[in-house]
């Protein structure tokens, strides 16, 4: 069974550019989460999809971040325009309906804004 897949694994962009991160969850997992870790700090929640619906986006930093989940399958997280403080590792995680925090994580996308 394939795990959670994220790409790209690394991205280096200039301030002001746009970047789109993609996450393919485990097939059949209704829950999809995005998290971010800024260097040296804790991993922070960004948002939660249940199927194609945004359940909770309380962690999104600002309106430069846009997340979508097409047809309840893969998800994209777009940052437009990127700022220096957006640098960090973005993790995607998925879980089955009824799970209580046990999630499967992808390897993460390391985003560097220069």
């Amino acid at each position: 069974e394939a795990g959670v897949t994220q790409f790209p694994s690394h991205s280096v962009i200039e301030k002001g550019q746009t970047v789109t991160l993609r996450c393919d969850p485990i097939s059949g997992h209704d829950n999809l989460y995005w998290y971010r870790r800024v260097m040296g700090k804790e991993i922070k929640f960004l948002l939660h999809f249940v199927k194609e619906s945004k359940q909770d986006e309380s962690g999104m930093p600002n309106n430069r971040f846009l997340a979508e989940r097409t047809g309840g399958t893969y998800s994209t997280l777009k940052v437009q325009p990127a700022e220096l403080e957006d640098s960090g590792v973005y993790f995607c995680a998925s879980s089955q309906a009824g799970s209580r925090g046990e999630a499967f994580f992808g390897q993460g996308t390391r985003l560097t804004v220069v």
Partner: protein
Amino acid sequence: AQSVTQLDSQVPVFEEAPVELRCNYSSSVSVYLFWYVQYPNQGLQLLLKYLSGSTLVKGINGFEAEFNKSQTSFHLRKPSVHISDTAEYFCAVSEVRGGGNKLTFGTGTQLKVEL
């Protein structure tokens, strides 16, 4: 809201020695507790979890943790570590009711096992 504190950012230990990674949490509601591990160049992997029942939980790779409600702690232990245990360990909580099961993480503890 919840918060998780991992006081030790780095823990060096010799191979075959015991180790304890500390985790304390704060929450106004009941929570589930987790330890995740991130090996170099990999994603986070669930190590163990406390949902209910026995306060001593066992996980993969010989790790165990004990939930102490009065001290709001969930320390991770292993009696004898191996080089392959070198990784970053994250303590996390999620709300028992509501919250969508999103995780609140600590800042992580880097375990470095030396020969």
